[in-house]
């Protein structure tokens, strides 16, 4: 027993050592235009194909010795008169040592603020000689940064003499002789790719540590490897709806973290103009994975987690209709994430954005999508399979397994919302799967579904994708509607106002959601008649959504509102989701969409809806149902801190993006050259870092309260639906005896032995034979 304990701890120790050795971020965001020093900073065209060469760099330096460096800048693509073209400016800086002009270059090269640059006399020269004198200490590595400009030197443009200028940056480092003792390897500068992968590994490690900790807390006596494997085996093979729900939850939390790491990395890239923290390829695959991860691997699994956990409890069923299919749905999802991330791990991350627009995504080669895209598309197909499997389960369960008294119009609103969401998913998924299968075939066996030159149609992809994609955003927001309905009613100690109109509004959104996809394509060259139709239908979605918001407000009327953490999240949802809904009204308008389409205004809008809507709703659900799942409440003080930072941070991150969108900043841009956008972008990036850090409060709260939380009892918040009648945590199977839901509107309770409608009879009929 004791030896096993030692073995587990030494395993953890090795993991910690591995973590400590992961690469560190040391990239330096620079660009010629942001130098602020004389030299070539007077020209700041875009980063381009300028070639920089430096000759004479030593392999390692000796203290105090001088080295003669030769610099050459050229760019044949810069237009201009022949005599004056391809002139170059340069600025060379080093982290240690001193510079001086090279031999015979005293008039052409000068030293300014520690770095070397050329003088005015050097304007017409393309090659320079510079001396660098090494520092006195050999025990260091000196980093060199050289910014090189190629300019056309022909100042006759329209008020802009530097048209076509381009710069590039060359970095290198030279180790001191002392650092090379024994031929030891150098520590190289970290690549953002490595940072991302390290962060993913870090997440997985944290996750493993958490698993071990939870295992230990469950049974401190039986803490050994044999116990761990059998415990893990139980989790890997479970079909109980609560345990599969927990798997979904933990999984979604892991990917929420990974998706956040990607977003923070590209927020650092975007924080200043002309930044080069990430390369273009890295940026493109990071925003692709951020979007796909957040939608498919974080939001949807978290919804599935709550649907798994809560639906059978709310409708009084012992388990879901198809427990094994349910488990299969989860494991298909888990393995699809390996496909989605396979590309990134190999350095060829998919760079097609979450919309995967063909024909870029179907093209390969030098300028096409990267090789990892094929794996990515295969992963999306697997995600479709997973969603289909879990969706059929929820629909069947809700239709056929409701306890006596839980009629359609007496069903808790969260169950209703999950039903509508899964029905929508079910109708829309085939479009995505067909589209991605076409795409997969285009990429692998050379079909031409999206190749215009061979008779294919690029717009077909946009139609197929958005026929799925727009219902999909309702699929992730509608369960949040259900959660907020439950939380607000319970917190106000009242029943929900207008239960029936709430259900009809949900159904209305469910139907309208299928006829609005074209507002994503208003500028795509689609038929103008379709544009008119989509504009009208899209505007109509505001009506049922408005009904829901006002019903929520009316629910508060005459109540006695308690401010628990889940209440705060739901109230926060009301604020941010309303703002996101209002900004959504800007897009169906053709005259506005011609500007807003594919700008940061869109990014602001859908983050208000997905973060301020879905994520806030899910956070509300975490604080609301955590006691039911574990028997202990989450810490309210930590919860308040988490809410305040996230709510303010969320608005600080996404509100300024509206302004950037109005100013015309396009989305999916690796970098931008408009200096006036820097201020807002820096503010956004800083806020994003703070908001990201705040999420660790929630993770800590979840772990801490598992052991130390206040015990909750059956019904800690005063809810009415059936999940509050059972113990916390509920037994397995979830009800030993099928409960009966009473009805406060009827005074004499006379339920027939077997109530339930047509579907329930069909179900029972086939089962009893």
């Amino acid at each position, binding site marked *: 027993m004791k030896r096993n304990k030692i073995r587990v701890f030494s395993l953890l120790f090795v993991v910690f050592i591995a973590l400590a050795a992961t690469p560190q971020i040391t990239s330096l965001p620079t660009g010629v235009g942001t130098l602020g020093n004389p030299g070539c900073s007077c*020209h*700041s065209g875009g980063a381009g194909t300028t070639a920089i060469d430096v000759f004479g760099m030593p392999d390692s330096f000796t203290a105090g010795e001088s080295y003669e460096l030769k610099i050459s800048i050229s760019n044949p693509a810069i237009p201009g008169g022949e005599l004056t073209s391809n002139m170059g400016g340069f600025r060379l800086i080093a982290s240690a040592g001193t510079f001086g002009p090279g031999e015979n270059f005293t008039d052409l090269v000068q030293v300014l603020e520690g770095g070397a640059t050329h003088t005015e006399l050097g304007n017409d020269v393309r090659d320079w000689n510079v001396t660098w004198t090494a520092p006195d200490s050999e025990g260091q590595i000196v980093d060199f940064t050289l910014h090189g400009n190629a300019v056309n030197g*022909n100042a*006759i*443009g*329209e008020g802009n003499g530097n*048209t*076509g200028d381009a710069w590039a940056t060359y970095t290198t480092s030279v180790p001191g002789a002392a650092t090379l003792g024994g031929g030891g390897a150098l520590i190289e500068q970290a690549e953002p790719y490595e940072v991302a992968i390290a962060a993913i590994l870090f997440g997985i490690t944290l996750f493993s540590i958490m698993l071990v900790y939870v295992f230990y807390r469950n049974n401190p006596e039986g803490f050994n490897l044999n116990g761990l494997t059998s415990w893990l085996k139980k989790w890997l093979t479970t079909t109980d709806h609560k345990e599969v729900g927990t798997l979904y939850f933990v999984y979604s939390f892991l990917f929420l973290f990974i998706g956040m790491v990607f977003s923070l990395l590209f927020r650092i890239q975007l924080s200043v103009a002309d930044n080069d923290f990430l390369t*273009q390829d890295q940026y*493109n695959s990071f925003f692709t994975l951020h979007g796909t991860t957040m939608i498919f691997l974080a939001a949807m699994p978290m919804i599935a987690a709550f649907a798994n956990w809560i639906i059978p409890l709310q409708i009084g069923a012992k388990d879901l209709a198809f427990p094994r299919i349910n488990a299969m749905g989860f494991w298909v999802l888990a393995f699809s994430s390996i496909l989605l991330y396979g590309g990134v791990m190999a350095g060829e991350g998919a760079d*097609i954005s979450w919309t995967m*627009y063909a*024909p870029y995504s179907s*093209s390969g080669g030098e*300028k*096409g999508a990267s090789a990892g895209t094929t794996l990515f598309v295969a992963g999306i197909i697997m995600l479709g399979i997973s969603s289909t499997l879990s969706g059929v389960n929820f629909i069947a369960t809700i239709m056929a397994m409701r306890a006596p008294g839980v009629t359609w119009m007496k069903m808790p609103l969260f169950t209703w919302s999950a039903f509508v969401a899964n029905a929508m998913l079910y109708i829309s998924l085939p479009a995505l799967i067909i589209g991605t299968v076409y795409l997969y075939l285009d990429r692998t066996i050379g079909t031409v579904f999206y*190749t*215009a*030159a061979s008779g*294919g149609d*690029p*717009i077909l992809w946009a139609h197929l994708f958005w026929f799925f994609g727009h219902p999909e955003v309702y699929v992730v927001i509608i369960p949040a509607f259900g959660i907020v309905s439950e939380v607000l009613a319970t917190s*106000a*100690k*009242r029943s929900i106002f*207008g239960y029936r*109109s709430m259900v009809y509004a949900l159904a209305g959104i469910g139907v309208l959601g299928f006829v609005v996809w074209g507002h994503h394509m208003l500028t795509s060259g689609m038929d103008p008649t379709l544009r*008119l139709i989509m504009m009208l239908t899209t*505007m109509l979605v505001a*009506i049922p959504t408005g*009904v829901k918001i006002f019903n929520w407000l009316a629910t*508060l*009327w*005459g109540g*006695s*509102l*308690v*401010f628990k953490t889940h209440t705060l999240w739901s109230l926060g949802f*009301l604020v941010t989701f309303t703002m996101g809904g*209002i900004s959504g*009204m800007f897009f169906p*308008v*053709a005259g*506005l969409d*011609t*500007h807003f*389409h*594919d700008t940061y205004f869109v990014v602001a809008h859908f983050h208000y809806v997905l973060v301020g809507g879905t994520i806030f709703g899910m956070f509300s659900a975490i604080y609301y149902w955590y006691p039911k799942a574990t028997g202990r409440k989450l810490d309210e003080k930590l919860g308040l801190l988490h809410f305040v930072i996230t709510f303010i941070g969320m608005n600080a991150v996404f509100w300024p993006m509206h302004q950037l969108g109005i*100013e015309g900043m*396009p989305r*999916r841009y*690796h*970098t931008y050259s*408009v*200096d006036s956008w820097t201020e807002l972008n820096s503010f956004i990036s800083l806020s994003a870092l703070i908001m990201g850090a705040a999420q660790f409060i929630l993770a800590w709260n979840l772990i801490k309260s598992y052991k130390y939380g206040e015990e909750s009892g059956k019904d800690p918040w005063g809810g*009415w639906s059936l999940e509050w009648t059972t113990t916390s945590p509920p037994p397995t199977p979830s009800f030993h005896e099928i409960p*009966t839901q*009473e009805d*406060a*509107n009827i005074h004499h309770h006379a339920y027939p032995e077997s109530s339930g409608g047509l579907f329930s009879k069909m179900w029972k009929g086939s089962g009893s034979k």
Partner: protein
Amino acid sequence: MPTVNSWNVSAQNVGGSTLGPADYTIFRSLLETWNFWSLVVGIFTFVLLIYLVIRFREVSPDDSNIDSIAPGVFPKERDNLTLELTWFIVPTILVLYLTFIAWQSMITVWVDPYSEEGADDAFDITIEAYQWGWNFYYHDEIQVLNETENGSVNGMKIYATPMGTEIKDGAIGIDNNLYLPCNQLIKAKIITKADGGELPVLHAPFFPEWAIKEDAVPGLETYLSFTPRETGTYNLFCAEYCGQQHSKMFAKVHVVGQCGE
């Protein structure tokens, strides 16, 4: 001296006595209308929310439970048909009103440039998008006043770019600089080009100062029409994600010539 202009959308190109197709003023006036109604709806909702949250907060923990809420019992339903109809009908009217306004702009934005009155006066160009840059083909000429050495005006001449290219029928701009005449209807045909044997992909020329864009779609000709009202240098971005150097795919638009009265 930054070479990339930092520009301010609201300050540029809002003038013009008559509205051309896709004139910037359409965007501006629609944005103002939408901002106004957003504020009305938002302020109404949030003031109501704050009032309700403060007025109906919990005062003492043993407040009476008016809706008979107990675990396992569907609570007393409450609704009010008049209220629910109110917040069904009022937003419906607002939405229909806004759709009506938006509808008119729609007709103006995507008018068929070749069926329009006075189409012969329009300045025709073709914008060709490739990975990653723009080619511009001119089908008409830009005329500017010919100023002689002593400052007097001597008739009209064809506008020549700083590189010496005359902007006339058949001229091609391949250096990411587009030249347009002022105060004249521009009709731009948008096409794509495969570059070096690869497939052509989607792009979208986006003129942020004029608030218009339209996708370039392989196998399809799309159009934009608009009227620049002020001379100056403007931006052209690519707005549809097109691969590695999507963010480097920009050009400068130079509006030249006389804007007239």
